[in-house]
């Protein structure tokens, strides 16, 4: 059965190719630092389950050392110039979109085909990983199509992938790193402590104030953890269940579902949600690393107000 491990093996190969491309970049003084960084990521994808917890911990420290001592750096990786690209774009036209669309379409059509045909019972692909596995298949198909059609140099996809990876740099592993921080926070009891603090400052007698505190608690805790999933169980245990559902008789489905969505307003406003807020700033080459967060605040705050109203009205008044 094809499961996540196949995909991790493929991802390991892709990261190893970034390392190879980094070494090939002779003009870059930091090419060995880049190569070491991507090699460690490849190692994690390939052998993470064999390294053991301490082994992975040492690997994490090595990644941090490379980034912390400024051993990573983007070079002046050779690619085509903007002029050349404009010529290519005139030559190939809208067909250039096709390989890019192969990836989402393989994932989309493939997931539907898999879920609504007997393929589902064939056991070919692990059911919960279908979309991601097909995304990987899409990447391979798209690469084959590109090579057959555009006939680039053999190493072009390696070099271009490495160019983008080195443009993103350490930010690429930040989301995974923050998830690991979340695990340490949980083990050290940070969530339980915050829950206890939030629970202790609940005002008695006002349902609206309790709703407000629940939603704001979700937002603040989500901003700290970078993830509403970490905040939800804590806030449910502190306020959502004992106060809103049990004491005030609120509708549980609303308290749960909309409480989580209030937390997502926090996700929009925090650099800790690195994969949504920091990595895109690097991907889009923004000057301000907090540029994405900055424009999201004006959507998040009115949306939070809406969520609080929905919580109160649908949870208690309908």
């Amino acid at each position: 059965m094809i499961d996540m491990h196949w995909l991790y093996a493929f991802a390991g190969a892709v990261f190893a190719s970034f390392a190879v491309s980094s070494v090939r970049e002779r003009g870059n003084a930091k090419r060995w630092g880049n190569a070491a960084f991507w090699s460690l990521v490849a190692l994690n994808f390939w052998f993470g389950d064999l390294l053991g917890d301490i082994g992975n911990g040492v690997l994490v420290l090595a990644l941090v050392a490379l980034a912390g001592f400024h051993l990573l750096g983007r070079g002046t990786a050779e690619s085509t110039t903007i002029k050349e690209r404009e010529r290519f774009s005139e030559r190939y036209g809208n067909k250039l979109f096709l390989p890019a669309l192969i990836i989402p379409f393989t994932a989309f059509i493939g997931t539907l085909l898999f879920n609504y045909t007997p393929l589902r019972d064939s056991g070919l692909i692990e059911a919960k990983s279908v979309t991601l596995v097909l995304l990987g298949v899409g990447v391979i198909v798209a690469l084959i199509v590109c090579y057959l059609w555009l006939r680039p140099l053999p190493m072009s996809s390696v070099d271009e992938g490495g160019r983008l990876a080195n443009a993103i740099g350490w930010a690429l592993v930040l989301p995974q790193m923050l998830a690991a921080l979340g695990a340490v926070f949980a083990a050290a009891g940070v969530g339980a402590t915050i829950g206890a603090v939030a629970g202790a400052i609940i005002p008695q007698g006002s349902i609206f104030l309790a709703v407000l505190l629940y939603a704001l608690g979700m937002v603040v805790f989500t901003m700290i953890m970078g993830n509403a999933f970490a905040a939800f169980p804590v806030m449910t245990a502190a306020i959502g269940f004992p106060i809103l559902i049990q004491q005030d008789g609120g509708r549980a489905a609303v308290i749960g579902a909309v409480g989580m969505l209030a937390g997502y307003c926090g996700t929009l406003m925090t650099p800790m949600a690195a994969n949504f807020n920091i990595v895109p700033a690097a991907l889009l080459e923004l000057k301000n690393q907090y540029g994405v967060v900055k424009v999201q605040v004006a959507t998040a705050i009115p949306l939070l107000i809406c969520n609080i109203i929905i919580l109160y009205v649908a949870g208690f008044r309908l």
Partner: protein
Amino acid sequence: MTNYWPLLGIVLVVLGFALRFNPLLVVAVSAIVTGLLGHMPFLKVLGVLGHGFNENRIVTLIYIVLPVIGLLERYGLQQQARALIMRMRGATTGRLLVVYMVFRQLLAALGLTSVAGQAQTVRPLVAPMALAAAEKEHGALDEDTAERVKAMSAATDNVGLFYGEDIFIAVSSILLIQGALKAFGIELTPFELSVWAIPSAICAFVIHSTRLLWLDRILSRHPRGRGGPAAFKENPDSRFRGNDEA
């Protein structure tokens, strides 16, 4: 007696991010300090950190698309995205992003969260198109305006994803809500929860679309900038490059 000291780890993260130390370093230091203050021996902290890192490889997985995106960029994908928008009449930045958000919300509501995203669609297609639409309507953009259009493209993807995915019954957050409430003896089906994601999804759409259409008005007022196409020319002045060379 509650041990409040581990909360110092949070303070370290906030300070570290605010002072713009390398985020990987900030996170590692915070993790170790938090663990030690929580009375965990160093090797235990290291193990929890390593375990957490290994268990979450899935969040880094999406970058397997980079070789394809990079290769297509080499052959003018972004330039073609621009050219397409330049030929399209009535395509403004705001309208384009509203259409993208509709797709993103609907796909996410069908459970197809990873068919679009920052690496898959925003960098190669959506952001260059949004920039091209702005330049077509309003001439060359100054740097701040180009930055704002790019940031809005990324933001639109996030808002569409967050306020679409919970409508799908099998998404992990719905399962998490169900599990957390079940621990208190409340039995709900995923469907009962996911219908309550719909009002917020509508609010998100209305609020963010209004902002996007408002962006068109702001763009029409902004002072014309100089210089050529602002799309992703490798920017040597960039203070933030995803890797620091301070």
